[in-house]
């Protein structure tokens, strides 16, 4: 009884009891490892051994040498392209489901997530069977007497196709959830006041659903930026991405210090993208009425 009373009466005890375990977990398993990565990034590696010789050489290499910077820029470009394509594809789908899905809305949205019932490796293997030199598409083309399409497999385009396939459900779901709460009657009001459909879309629908769209972009951009399996299996000799190089440092190369610096740069780049998108969201305009809006 005393314990129960303490929980009820002392907000500090209650707060510590409720928040403590979660906070401890985050400190132990997220912050400390992250901090160690930051520390390692200022050390150096010699013959698989980390040496605590403080320097910024790893950052100079990652941000100053083309052989590493190229992969950073390439990964950012790939993430941006995949996000843009997912956005263009997912918006009309989500719109149609939200507006015309009727009682099948939920089923239709859940169907888009059906590929998630399997593992990522299985999905990538399936993509290999479809896109590969001996895959479904090329075999069909050859049966019809046409030349196989070389860019479909072991290229950066193949990687992009694989990544779009993997992450598009996230974009679709985020936009759909935003549209689910959107009052479509506003469009009628806009039309009554003389707005053409496109103008109504860009001045009413788009801005009022920008928050959901921005969340969708983040949900696609970050995993695409961090993708390693897809480019490794679909990308071919020129398909390596920033994360593949990062993995290489922690794997067979054993250059952990350089890998740590790459990890920190990647983390910062992701945070910058999230910050930029967050700055574009106008909560009040998006219809958010919570505290601080």
């Amino acid at each position, binding site marked *: 009884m005393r314990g129960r009373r303490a929980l009820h009466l002392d907000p500090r005890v209650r707060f510590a009891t409720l928040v403590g375990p979660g906070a401890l977990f985050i400190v132990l398993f997220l912050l400390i490892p992250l901090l160690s990565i930051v520390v390692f990034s200022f050390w150096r590696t010699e013959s*698989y051994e980390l040496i605590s010789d403080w320097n910024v050489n790893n950052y100079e290499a990652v941000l100053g040498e083309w052989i590493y910077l190229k992969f950073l820029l390439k990964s950012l470009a790939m993430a941006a392209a995949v996000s843009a394509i997912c956005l263009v594809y997912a918006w009309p789908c989500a719109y149609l489901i939200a507006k015309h899905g009727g009682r099948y809305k939920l089923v239709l949205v859940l169907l888009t997530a059906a590929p998630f019932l399997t593992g990522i490796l299985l999905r990538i293997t399936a993509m290999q069977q479809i896109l590969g030199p001996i895959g479904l598409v090329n075999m069909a083309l050859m049966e019809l007497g046409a030349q196989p399409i070389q860019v479909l497999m*072991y290229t950066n385009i193949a990687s992009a196709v694989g990544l779009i396939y993997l992450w598009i459900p996230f974009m679709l779901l985020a936009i759909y959830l935003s549209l689910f709460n959107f009052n479509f009657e506003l469009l009628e009001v806009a039309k009554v006041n003389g707005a053409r459909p496109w103008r109504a879309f860009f001045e009413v629908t788009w801005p009022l659903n920008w928050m959901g769209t921005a969340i969708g972009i983040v949900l696609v951009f970050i995993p695409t930026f961090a993708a390693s399996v897809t480019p490794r299996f679909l990308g071919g000799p020129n398909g390596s991405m920033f994360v593949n190089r990062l993995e290489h440092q922690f794997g*067979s190369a054993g250059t952990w210090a350089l890998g740590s610096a790459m990890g920190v740069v990647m983390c910062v780049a992701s945070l910058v993208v999230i910050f930029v998108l967050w700055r574009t969201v106008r909560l009040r305009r998006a219809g958010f009425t919570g505290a601080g809006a």
Partner: protein
Amino acid sequence: MDKTNSTSNSVPHQKRRVSRRSVIKGAAALSAAGFTWKSIGPFVRDAEAATLELRWLGWEHYNVKSLTAEFENRHDVKVSAGFFDGNSEAWNKLRAGGTQDFDLVMADGFWPRLYAKQGLVQSVDYSKLDLSNVFDDFVPPKFTLLRAEDSEDMIAAPNCWGGYGFTVNMDKVAAEDQESVNLLFNEKYEGHLSTSARFEENIALAGILAAHNMGTQDSERPDGKSFNPYVLSDEELEECKRLLIKQKGLLVNRWNDEDTLERLLRAQVVWASPEWSGIYRRIHFDKLDGKSDLNMRHVLKPTEGGLGWVDQWSITSGVTDSEKLEIAHKWIDFRLEREAMKTVAVEIGWAPTVDVRDMLPERYVDTLFLNETGSIHGLYQFDAPSSPEKWERIWSAVEAA
């Protein structure tokens, strides 16, 4: 009348009601009890009943369930295994405290010597092993990598061996091109070549060709030792980089898994690729069985020289208990038994260092190169790059090109 009786008399007998709260309480109590028992259970058993556990770190394909079960039954121990993909990964695991987590570690080429230098493994007592059936080619004096570099201590025992040669489609690749490392860099076969994603072996193979082309392979080396493709000069590394960048344009892919390469070889999309010879064996067996028309060969030792390996068992320095040390030796000895080696050869397809030729069908003897065990001396053994940092930069430059 006592109070109890009074109560029992005054309150009519009712069936006790099961409330939601009591169900939740009961479930919580059961969960807590179960969780507690699961957490402390392993520690409260009778110490005498505890089973000795032998833990090894190695390549996953060596985890043959039937062999493990047989050893466990024979010695009343439990055997568990951890896996790695490459020597450097195992090295990092042991360096990060893995000697306390594993009693045995597998390695190949020069790696056991590196482990010994760092004090990660201890001596293996050869008097406890029956090496009578091991081919001479895989034990000293012919094969010295089982011994520490600076002493007579034996630091490892042999397991299986092989090369990292090329599997070649003989119908597609001209006979005069088939046996040279240059095949992997030959523009004639653009769009029909593949290599693995392993950066060390890609650079080492290019290093053999680079040194051959530069005439430095047989000349005196800066370290006073004979040529080793894992110890390359800066000029040779630059030449490797040039060759590998040129090679990129010729490749279909860099394979990460054998299944992918096998599919591409069978479909004749890829005509030549380095591999461990397992894919060649499967395709060749299919031809022998009339299931395939493909004419494949495996070039174990190319003209400029090739890469090879003898993988080995070592006992980690974390094993200090005499009983554990004994059982670790018994495990190595068990894996050297002819029956065990036959199982490894047939089930997982690696060539044993033990002579089991009379126990295997002829096709296995041929394709596992068991009549050519002397070839191992002409192959450059797998090693750690002399400077992983320089090699990493070369590989990143190749990838970025």
